[in-house]
């Protein structure tokens, strides 16, 4: 299990109803974590249309989770 800090932006923030949260997860990779969260919050976007960053660096979805990671999910936005 890993305790991770999550940050949500744009639609994800709206759908999660919060900009950040801390979760204890058994998910091994970022992809598994996102699917877990998607089921919980009902996120409409799939992982393929998002970018993920860990500890302020963009990462691949198969990166393994470590205790204390700060994970940010970022959808593209188009408003102007």
């Amino acid at each position, binding site marked *: 299990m890993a305790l991770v800090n999550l*940050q949500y*932006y*744009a*639609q994800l*923030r*709206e759908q999660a109803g919060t*900009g950040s949260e801390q979760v204890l997860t058994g998910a091994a990779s970022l992809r598994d974590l996102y699917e877990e969260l998607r089921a919980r919050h009902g996120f*409409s*976007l799939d992982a*393929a*249309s998002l*970018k993920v*960053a860990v500890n*302020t*660096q*963009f990462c*691949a979805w198969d990166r393994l989770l470590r205790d204390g990671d700060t994970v*940010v999910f*970022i*959808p*593209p*936005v*188009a*408003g*102007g």
Partner: protein
Amino acid sequence: MKRFAIATTAIDPAALREGLRDPGAGGFCAFEGWVRNSNEGREVDGLEYEAYVELAIAEGERIAEEAIARYGVSAAHCVHRTGDLKIGDMAVWVGASAPHRDEAFRACRYIIDEIKHRLPIWKKEHYVTGETSWVACSHTYREHEHEEGGHPHHGHAHHGHAPAAPFMPDYSRQMRLSEVGEAGQARLAAARVLVIGAGGLGSPVIAYLAGAGVGTLGLVDGDRVDASNLHRQTLYDARDIGKPKVELAARRVAAINPSVQVRAFAEPLHAGNVVETFAQFDLVLECTDDMRSRYLSSDGAVLSGTPLVLASVYQYEGQLQVVDPKAGLPCLRCLWPQEPSPEAVGSCVLSGVLGPVPGVLGAMQAMEALKILLDLPRPKNATLALVNLLDNTIQHLGMDTTAGCAAHGGCTHQARAALRRAQDQREMDLSFHSLAEAVAAGFQLVDVREANEIAALPLPGVPSRHVPSGEIAVHAQVLRNEGRYLLICASGRRSAHAVQRLRAEGVENVYSLAGGLAALSLRKAS
């Protein structure tokens, strides 16, 4: 269109007069302005006109249109000279043809008065003594201001403005910065910057870059001002509703800093011209709220080698990214390789936004632009900045330049493929004002909507066949027959997709109605 022109060589009144012939016109009136040998008591032996050409043309067109609408004349035209003129040369020609003489006289008078008053044209007089002086062509007495209200003899209160001295920009506050100075100011004056989108992000961008003295500003926007724009698009006010943003923005630039040259693009860029357009600028700022435009700009920047400052907003937050192909910085596709569907990305219309959010992000874009133009210190790493204006944080997320496009042939390869796809799409998408127009052009209509949609909104009075988009491949053989087919759906998306599938099957004579039925009803409304 084209009712106003700037001429650099002698005006030919005979040709202009012929251009105004109209079978319904019973009268024609022309006014010619000539260079005379004295002004306010001084002997003049010639003069020189200098115009802010783009703005003069836009404003001249508007004046001629106003005259046509105001007096109901059949046609009107005006030409103004620039360059060196001698005594007796024609400086300006105005003509109007109308059913009756009175309208023609009045339209002519209106145009010349407004031209004198409103056009950004400066006159430099050469005196016999050898001296010269710039004279502002404004503060005219305008007859038509006194036509209405019924008191023609009591309305002679002149505007009383002293003739405006030619404007001299003062950049002292920014030149005082040791990193700017005269050299920096000269760099700005030599810079050509393209701003795509004159909305919430574009408003601060355009205002700051004009104020800073960027030599040439290109402005791209195809929209008109809507009342719902005013909470965030600070270039405009309530009087501007319904007017084209690009023209208003060009006037705003001229008002802030008349020394800035404006190049206005009233149509959005497309895959066919984005690269050559970008190549004419030193820097591009993408300020639209349109995901397709953002990807197009990224591809254009990659292929032309022009740096691009991207920003976008969502509710209370925004994203900022600098794409600099020559510095090896990743493009938009490096982050999100596929353009997301419009439903996935949200918009100011659907998701809402507070006005200052694009204001802040636009100001940040302007700051990045000035840093790039002045070569000020800035982060060299590839990052996406996430700006959260609820908790006032800015997060810089570092990008791995070996991931993204680099893993799929590189940004250039990806951009080229994307532009080719967009070009193909452009060739397949056709725009019409009405379905009847498409039928008249020889197209057979194929409605690819579902039966229930057709029942709810049948095609109005034109023959069509019905093939739901999901079954289109089955009908490839039938559509292969001679003739040209226009596929139609509600938004243009399903019909475009169906056309792509048919083309993949080798059916070449099929096209998609651009924007679908929604675009048609929009045209009708506007």
